[in-house]
């Protein structure tokens, strides 16, 4: 249906490969090595370009690389920040994996995340009760909020046949205004203000007891509840997608909706719920950001986590197991970049550097696939199989 196809048909290996297979990883193949090679090349080019720009701005390229490294993975402080960033990215990506698998391409995670954060904030600020209950309810509510938002697209798609890509995109802009409205309406979520002076367009901060716990004390390694939630969700989802009946039906729906219907899958229900679920994951990510790092609703709270999370899913080819490392990578890119900004490199350039690096990680898998196909079509053959069964044109997953 869309650009994204699932990875079904990976050769299943008995037991040994069972676990690895169930999270969607494969033994490194020639393809993997090639991808790795191209990645190194692309990253080198991106860093080179960045260095050029930074030199132009009277900075030192060496320091840029150093700062990217220091800020992300060189020490516990860097790792802490990387993980904080990775958690929402991963959650969003998981949702995107589900939708992609079902063949409904959701690109509105940014808006769904915002709505999730808003609903979560509303619950957290209004609901009275013991901390853990309120936190749980707020997170669930955030997921509901995000899910409801993508549910609008789902409803429009399954009743009117509107293009999901387009509606989710449009709804993102609308979500931003809904949140603006909420934080500018005293009756909704606008800050009560402190004493005199104008109220800012943001909500009150959630009280301390409603903030997600984290283990460790910055700058030592800290691991927030958000990270744990995301990792657990990854494992569960990976197993479900690879091994459960639901996952099977979802994959079937994504790859051939007609055959799925013949096999008893109601697309509007399964596909619709996949879209809703992907919104719910984005909403949950919004809840985690709200209660885990920002603590109040701000119009910019989504901070591109939605878009980047989608990117993670695309780079990971809609495999939760791959999404985990990719999310960490993108989290590191974020923390490295923000550390880079703190070294005095002009902030615009930091954005440019980050975008270049993102591209450097997005391009290689695609290039590698194209290359592999070209090689395969050229490969000289020693002896020809009797019937051309095994090597008929295999559909490649080109998604990114």
């Amino acid at each position, binding site marked *: 249906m869309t650009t994204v196809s699932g990875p079904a048909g990976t050769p299943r290996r008995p037991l040994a490969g069972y676990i690895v297979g169930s999270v969607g990883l494969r033994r490194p193949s020639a393809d993997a090595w090639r991808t790795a090679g191209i990645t190194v090349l692309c990253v080198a080019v991106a860093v080179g370009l960045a260095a050029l720009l930074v030199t132009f701005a009277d900075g030192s390229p060496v320091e840029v690389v150093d700062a990217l490294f220091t800020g992300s993975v060189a020490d516990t402080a860097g790792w802490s920040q990387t993980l904080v960033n990775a958690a929402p990215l991963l959650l969003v990506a998981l949702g995107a994996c589900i939708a992609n698998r079902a063949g409904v391409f959701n690109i509105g995670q940014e808006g769904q995340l915002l709505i999730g954060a808003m609903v979560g904030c509303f619950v957290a600020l209004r609901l009275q009760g013991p901390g853990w209950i309120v936190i749980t309810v707020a997170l669930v509510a955030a997921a509901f909020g995000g899910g409801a938002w993508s549910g609008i697209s789902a409803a429009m798609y399954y009743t009117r046949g509107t293009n999901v890509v387009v509606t989710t995109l449009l709804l993102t802009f609308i979500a931003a205004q809904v949140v603006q409205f909420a934080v500018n309406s005293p009756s909704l979520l606008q800050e009560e203000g402190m004493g005199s002076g104008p109220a800012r367009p943001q909500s009150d901060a959630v009280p301390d007891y409603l903030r997600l716990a984290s283990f460790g004390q910055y700058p030592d390694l800290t691991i927030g509840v958000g990270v744990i939630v995301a990792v657990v969700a990854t494992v569960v989802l990976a197993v479900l997608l690879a091994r459960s009946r639901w996952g099977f039906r979802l994959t079937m729906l994504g790859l051939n909706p007609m055959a799925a219907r013949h096999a008893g899958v109601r697309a509007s229900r399964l596909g619709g719920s996949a879209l809703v679920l992907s919104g719910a994951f984005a909403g949950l990510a919004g809840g985690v950001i709200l209660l885990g790092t920002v603590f109040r609703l701000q119009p910019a709270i989504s901070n591109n986590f939605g878009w980047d999370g989608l990117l993670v899913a695309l780079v990971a080819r809609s495999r939760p197991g791959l999404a985990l490392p990719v999310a960490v990578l993108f989290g590191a890119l974020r923390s490295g970049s923000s550390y880079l900004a703190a070294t005095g490199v002009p902030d615009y350039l930091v954005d440019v550097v980050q975008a270049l690096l993102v591209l450097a990680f997005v391009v290689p898998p695609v290039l590698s696939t194209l290359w592999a196909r070209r090689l395969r079509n050229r490969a000289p*053959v020693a002896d020809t199989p009797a019937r051309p069964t095994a090597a008929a044109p295999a559909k490649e997953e080109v998604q990114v």
Partner: protein
Amino acid sequence: MSHDRARTDGPAPALELRGISKRYGPVVACDAVDLTVQRGEVHGLLGENGAGKSTLMKVLLGLVHADAGEILRDGARVEVHTPLQAAELGLGMVHQHFSLIEPLTVWENVALGEPGRVDRNTICADVEAVGARYGLAVDPTATVERLSAGERQRVELIKALRRDPKVLVLDEPTSVLTIAESAALFEVLRTAVAAEGRGVILISHKLAEITAATDVVSVLRRGRLAFHCRTADTSAPELARQMVGRDVSLRAEGAALGLVVTDDPAKHLTPVLAGGLGAVPAEPPAPEASADVPGTAALALHGLCVAGPDGRTLLDHLDLEVATGEIVALYGVEGNGQATLGDLLSGLMAPDAGEVRVDGRPVSLDRPGALHHAGVGVIPEDRHRSGVVLDMSVADNLVMTDLRRFSGRLLMRRAQIRAQAEELVERFAIRTPSVDAPLRTLSGGNQQRVVLARELSANPVVLVAAQPTHGLDVGAIEDMYARLREAAASGVAVLLISTELEEVMALASRIAVISSGRITGVLDVADASPQRLGMLVGGEAA
């Protein structure tokens, strides 16, 4: 070889392919193929699925670049790198799968793929002129998506003929056409070849078409040119043997190849052109159970009505019953509701009115999978569309309609699935490297076997087979017929939806004729003659 003859015989052939080779990775689609087409000659190209026919033609048309070999036009070597160049060289093609853009109009489609300005009036006039010349009437301003399959085929033909090709390639042009439409098509070809001196390459699986309509014939086997001779000097059985590389038993599968079996199997096969309905049908296989006992119908369709999105009536109070152990054929011209009925029985759509009963119990049709649960197995008309998931494994495809049986509360039982898959692969002789191979890597015939195996393994009460042999090669057809008979013999009610008269006559015990979404008559095969069926197909009561 043919081009030797061409050299000695005076004028250079219109088209000559020499030593064309093309490989896709390890697959050698074409292996040093030579082919010669003379002016005013129809050249038949035969071969099993995957033999390389389409690839060879794509090379000729510049859609695929050959690894080796050369192309000569009128004796001069030419390079064909793009379809545009091909068109300039006077090479035209009607593709196996339609290459029309549905939301565009007929004239816009006809204009596609040429160079130069588009001028609506000229093109429309051209369309009408070409249509008039060949008897292919179609409204140039109509939107293609509103056209029937036959009309679309006409558009494809007009598109090719308008460019005044010196050599015209037709890749399986009749696979979606009815008898009448096929006959009309060959009429067009005859004009184009005889009166206008064009060369034609006709690709087909139907031996009858080949033997009746071609002057010379070439057979491809696994990418190699296996056989070449004048059509007059060969026979259908010979061609069949050349195609598969062994002898073919020619009773049932002969039907699918376009050969109607005469009363006496010992007698020679009578190849007929689809239009020439002269032969007497073979004795039908005796049904196990009586079809005439009312109330025992395994499948009963009552008053089914379906309207298309544009309000057109697709099914119009359709009634039909199929009894246990019986093969009933639903016969008719393409576009009269068969596809709709197939979709309906696959659970892909719900009717506006009417009901389907299986074993006497009504089935709620708007629940996906309900029909399957009730015991209706379906071999869909287009297996790639709704029959299989190409990117899932053979095993997964073999169990996908019965997931509950192969899963616990939450997780799938992989071991059980494997076991089932391996058993079915064995039982249905599916040729696959492993049950884990993606279905895409299987040949068409084997993909069809996967569908059949899956649907039969659920022990259905009813088996709906819609155009089950479309695009299959001889071996696969042979197998399919045997399996369908076997199923009926074991007590399954089989509904065969087909547009092939011979197939219908060979397999069914009763023939229901559909026209404009209505059943116009049901005949016992003994009473059915091509003439009577023809009248019913035309919508007249027989």
